[in-house]
């Protein structure tokens, strides 16, 4: 267990920068090509469309968490006032944590976020959480079904040690059957080896 944790820090440090860089490069590339080939009127129309798309995307609550305007204000105040972790808004709670290949060991750097989730669940007794366990496309269907179950249960057990009632935590494994990131790259695989939390 300790070994896995140490390794995971190193692994994450390595793959995070490329995953930030890639979208940036793509964005730059696409902008450049538009400036060269597109007439002004069309470009203006396109930029308007893109701005609309950006706005449409930003209201996806699950994905962007507390980035909506109202929520940001609230968070800043609560942070400044030094409120307990339990008052974190629901939107800020962790939705995905990631695992190494063929591993269901939680990583050390995910524990604070899981503690936030656990504390929030303890304060919001009418809420419940479904934890989905997922794997990347590699390996056997059957083994990955079991591995996904173990990943979901690893999160459940951690929440239980924090004092969350087991009855409020549901686990479900999807194995490698429903990947969130397509492609056969280490980056896509890393995104698919996850426990996904649905909070209700």
């Amino acid at each position, binding site marked *: 267990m300790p070994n896995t944790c140490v390794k995971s820090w190193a692994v994450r440090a390595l793959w995070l920068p490329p995953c930030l860089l890639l979208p940036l490069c793509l964005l730059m590339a696409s902008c450049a090509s538009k400036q060269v080939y597109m007439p002004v009127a069309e470009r203006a129309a396109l930029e308007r469309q893109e701005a609309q798309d950006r706005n449409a995307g930003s209201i996806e609550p699950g994905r962007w968490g507390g980035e909506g305007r109202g929520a940001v204000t609230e968070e800043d105040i609560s942070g400044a006032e030094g409120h307990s972790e339990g008052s974190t808004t629901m939107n800020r709670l962790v939705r995905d944590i990631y695992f190494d290949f063929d591993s269901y060991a939680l990583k050390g750097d995910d524990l604070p976020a899981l503690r936030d989730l656990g504390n929030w669940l303890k304060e919001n007794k009418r809420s419940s959480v479904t934890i989905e366990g997922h794997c990347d496309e590699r390996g056997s*269907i*059957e083994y990955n*079904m*079991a*591995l996904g179950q173990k990943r979901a249960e690893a999160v459940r057990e951690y929440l239980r040690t924090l004092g969350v009632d087991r009855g409020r935590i549901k686990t479900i494994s999807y194995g490698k*059957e429903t990947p969130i990131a397509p492609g056969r790259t280490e980056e896509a695989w890393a995104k698919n080896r996850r426990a996904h939390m649905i909070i209700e």
Partner: protein
Amino acid sequence: MKFSVLALTVCLFFAASQAEARVYLDVFGQSYKKITIATPPFKGDTAPATTQSAMKQLLDKGLDLSGFLIVAPSSVIDAELRSEGLERKDIRFEGWRSLGIDLICKGNLQQNADGLSLDAFLYDSSDGMLLFAKKYKGGQDEWRKIINRLADDIVLAITGEKGIMNSKILFISGGGRSRDAFIASLDGSEMHRLTSYNRLMVSPALSPDGRYLAFTSYREGSPHLYVVDVQRGREVWVNREEGMKNGVTWVDSKRIAYAHVSGKYSTIYCDNVETKERRLILRKDGILTSPSFTKDGKKVIFVSDMYGSAQIFAKDLGNGEIRRLSRSGAYNTSPVVSPKGDLIAFVSRMGGSFEICVMKMDGSEQRALTNGGINDSPRFSSCGRYIVYSSKNGGKGSIRLMLLNGDNKRLLNFTGSEEGQPSFFQ
């Protein structure tokens, strides 16, 4: 199952004893030489030309799938050879030999009010010997069955064991979360949809008598293990316990074994789906999955991560002893015991790919049969000479067939969409 095709032996199998040793297939070591066969167009003009050519096409496909034969292309057979008669006295064997052809399959196809009738003859060009002569009869729509029987008889004549063209393949098909179980003939025809849930489904397994289908389905949201009576279309047994229940295999026509992963422990159970009796086979920390039993029921092969990574183990159900079988690599899964009980097929991670491998029952002589991609779910044919498996290499998942030694890999295409988790039925 009802067969209306009548197979009548016209001549005796007087060459059966010589035929048995013609091809010897050994997965560990000796290679074998493929036999070249010519399949000139059938004689007879009462059947439509389209039926004639479809039958020849299917025969060639079946012989190629067998892995023991190379079908000589029609272009090498000149008009003179093509037009000669069916009887031994009419055949210029030296002409066939000069083309490098070892076997000649000739036939006379007739169609009348009763249906189709095919007289088929198999000759050995080296000595002009008639290996068999048979009359096949069936309805007009049964031409596939007739040809598949002929292909299987040719394989029998040269290897001593029937071919697999009359086998069926059970598999999962569908994209995304919408999947169902199907069964079809090996040649892709006679496809039947067994379920219509349009939900994620894994580990389908038909009971040996074809009566029950067991599978793990998400049709109620969570993954549960179901057994349905295929003919009557009703549920006979369900396990809705918490956790993952999958990797189901039939021990006999009434009992299933499967792994249940839930909480600290995983368990392999054996349940009788009729009497609901339950037997605990094995319980361990961590992951247990993919149980497979030897035919005598004395041993169970399974996957466990008890040493930190996925490995294959065997438990002797007599003395309770557990032995690790997979020795190399950090990821060995999906074991399945061959019908003869002498081999285990499984999946092993090798570099960046996941390969179908075989090893002996004690874990020795491990050997990879595939080369690249993500290969999974190996299953033996009932004769034990073939392995069907799912394969993914970039594109969509597909089903492949190969000989036990990895030769003659062939794509099997049924639905045109994503397919996987195949297994032989009969």
